[in-house]
């Protein structure tokens, strides 16, 4: 197994780069980071809509999250693969397709985190913000969201673990990421699929385990700050 790692380390880490497109762990991280960063504003909007005082907005946002959460990511990727080129009327790269699908998928899950974060704040924070004449949106922006986001950070990092694993599905439309690299290595070595895919699992595990440890550390830090100092 170590000889596979030794022989193909570059392929696992960066794919064909610098002679070809970026792949491997690096591209997996890029996919996940883009997915997280781009889905976050969407998630904030949807999460806010879910706790908003306007019924039609709540209903719409609820329907959106229910719908997306009820569909496997693989289907969203397939759907985006065929639908997005039709919608924009141009060729769309597999990478862009995958990012779009991940954004749609993760926005629904992140929205749940945002909603929970907003709902966990004491009611008095909103009441007092509204009581000095701030609009609902102003209250959200200056009082609720900053508090909710600080409390949400660990959950967001935890969610990024799921995003990293989700990127492996981009393999099916040919995005050169970590799983894709492993498949290439498997084709090269030919006779060692077990070892190769065990190695792949190890790569994912290290990434995800590191992130969840980081989330745990953040959680303890926030808890400590809430108890003692702050």
């Amino acid at each position: 197994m170590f000889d596979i790692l030794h022989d193909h380390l570059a392929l696992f880490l960066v794919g064909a780069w610098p002679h070809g497109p970026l792949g491997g762990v690096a591209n997996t991280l890029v996919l996940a980071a883009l997915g997280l960063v781009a889905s976050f504003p969407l998630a904030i909007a949807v999460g806010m809509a879910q706790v908003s005082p306007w019924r039609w907005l709540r209903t719409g946002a609820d329907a959106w999250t229910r719908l997306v959460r009820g569909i496997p990511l693989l289907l969203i990727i397939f759907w985006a693969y065929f639908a997005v080129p039709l919608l924009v009327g141009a060729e769309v790269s597999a990478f862009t397709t995958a990012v779009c699908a991940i954004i749609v998928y993760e926005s629904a899950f992140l929205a749940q985190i945002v909603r929970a974060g907003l709902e966990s704040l004491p009611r008095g924070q909103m009441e007092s913000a509204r009581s000095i004449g701030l609009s609902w949106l102003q209250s959200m922006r200056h009082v609720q969201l900053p508090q909710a986001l600080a409390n949400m950070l660990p959950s967001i990092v935890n969610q990024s673990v799921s995003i990293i694993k989700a990127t492996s599905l981009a393999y099916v439309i040919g995005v050169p990421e970590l799983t894709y690299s492993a498949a290439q290595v498997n084709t090269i070595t030919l006779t060692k699929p077990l070892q190769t895919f065990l190695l792949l699992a190890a790569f994912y595990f290290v990434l995800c385990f590191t992130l969840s440890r980081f989330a745990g550390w953040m959680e303890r830090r926030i808890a400590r700050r809430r108890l003692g100092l702050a």
Partner: protein
Amino acid sequence: MLQFENVDKYYGAHHVLKGIDAKIERGEVLVVCGPSGSGKSTLIRTVTRLEAIQGGRILFEGRDVAAADSNVNRLRARIGFVFQSFNLFQNLSVRQNLMLGPIKVLGLSRDAALAQAETLLAKVGLANKIDAMPANLSGGQQQRVAIARALAMKPPLMLFDEPTSALDPEMVQEVLQVMRALADEGMTMMIVTHEMGFAREVASRVWFMDHGQLLEDAPPARFFDHPAHARAQRFLQDVLRPAPRAAMLTD
């Protein structure tokens, strides 16, 4: 300045405000008292539409607060509200708590808002806490900041919903002191409180509520010495009686 006209409120089938009909004039300090569950907090919360009413009207400066053309944000900017649980913005420093409303709602410049914040903090005796975070203040300090935050909007009317009920006993006076000073300046105030000593000393009028009804509306001297209603008499006996239980416990 503030007028309740036959105000009715229900929580489902529960009738919590029953035909409240009363008026507060400019410069008055009105204390609302009554047993818990009497509807006094609900009543004060209806003024700025934190609670909706199902019948009657509430007029502030002659205008229906729930009128279709009334802007609820503008209404709330003109009426200061002090909560039982302070509700300072936890993510903002004391200074920012006092500046947010004036800048975002009144359109003050940062400098003007800061200067005003400093003046108001000095007034409530907390000039040295301007950079503190709310969580690092005692309850009494937080409530004084909350009063300053409400005053920063320069409201012609201030509402207090049990402002000392969440405080440790030793901190009650520092808050009442600030309120007393406000009353002396001629601020129009509506105060829900159990502090009967404060009511007798500072109030220009006292309302007594029970079971959603406004039973008495009298100057403090008359209310405390000769309450007309039997339920008001019983309430006063209960709250003014020196606590005998503490003595019994030590026996």
